[in-house]
């Protein structure tokens, strides 16, 4: 967990510094996540703990290029149940965690520049770190991976007169199978927050 925290803080500081450049946008959003595929099978509960930070340098009024990072933790407490594998059975309460930390390069396309409501679509690509823990009793089964990841998104920003905008977006994170995972790890987030323009 400390490694994740240190990595995020480092990138955060870099992003905040870069955000002082001209013609740039820094978005800061709260992200509610919904697991899909293998992650959704493992944890069906939504993730109420997450955020995304995205920095874009505008190369034109319609196109922004930059990077992003985020974090979503999925958690589920399973009631007392019996899990059987082969001749062995194990009963107890199970606590499931999945930490997902994407670090991506992004390109966004804005469809209505200069208007109060500006729709945008985007694509991110890069790496996503996943750490899954399955806890029973005092023991945990830990699985880790750095995935190659893709992240399409669609959103709108609603301008105000203070060089900032309210934004709402949907992002789909897809980390290809790697490391301790033989299946892809994917989830959808609904993001709400602010975009700071400079």
């Amino acid at each position: 967990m400390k490694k994740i925290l240190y990595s995020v803080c480092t990138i955060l500081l870099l992003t905040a510094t870069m955000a002082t450049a001209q013609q740039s946008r820094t978005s800061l959003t709260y992200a509610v996540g919904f697991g899909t595929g293998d992650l959704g099978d493992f944890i069906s509960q939504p993730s109420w703990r997450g955020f995304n930070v995205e920095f874009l340098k505008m190369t034109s009024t319609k196109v922004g290029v930059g990077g992003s990072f985020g974090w979503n933790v999925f958690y589920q407490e399973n009631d007392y149940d019996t899990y059987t594998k082969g001749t062995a059975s194990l009963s107890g309460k199970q606590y499931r965690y999945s930490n997902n930390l994407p670090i991506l390069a992004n390109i966004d396309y804005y469809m209505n520049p200069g208007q109060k409501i500006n729709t945008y679509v985007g694509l991110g690509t890069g790496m996503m770190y996943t750490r899954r823990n399955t806890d029973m009793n005092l023991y945990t089964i830990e699985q880790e991976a750095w995935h190659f990841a893709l992240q399409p998104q669609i959103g709108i920003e609603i301008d105000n007169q203070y060089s900032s905008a309210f934004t709402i977006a949907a992002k789909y994170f897809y980390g290809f199978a790697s490391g301790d995972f033989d299946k892809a790890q994917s989830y959808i987030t609904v993001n709400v927050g602010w975009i700071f323009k400079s």
Partner: protein
Amino acid sequence: MLRILTFSCLIAFTGFLFSGCYPGGADYTNDYDVVYTNHSPTYDFASKGTYAMPDKIVVDVEIDRGDTTYIYMKDIYATPILQAIADNMTALGWTRVDISATPDVLLTPAGISSTTYFYSYWYDWWYGGWYGGWGWYYPPYVTISSFTTGTLVMTIEDPNTDSPINASETSWVAAISGVLTGSYDINRILTGVDHAFDQSPYLKTN
């Protein structure tokens, strides 16, 4: 001004997210209780019918200059546990007999406790120049915390199995972990015993 605002918001937002909202796990000690069972897939339990079981539960062994002394669980705790085991075996069709009656299998319960210690160690250092030539100074701070967990283990062996080393292979094992804590909540133990047999339907005899 906007730069400062952006930077402050980023720091505050991230700090808020990381500080206090990481999801927790178990809330109560009984949330840690787990029951593990395993059995030999080749052993034919259905063809057996009698078992013998001791009337005490060993919780420790002391060896002093070659003399072995068994430490037993107090009767106030052992009696209901042994009764719960016997009730479950009866429900599965087994008949309890004395060890001298050549039982088909032996059922042996035992208690195991372990204490886990956590050591936290860190140190701070101050350069000597700040304190008038004390030099490098490494005052250690060590904190120790511990918890004790216990496990009730039950095994079934067939003493009639021929073995070159006169040792019987375990045909069934159950470990009820986390229940023999300092509070000795007998209901948690008895629930664990029931679960162990519930998840072992192959023990049923004809």
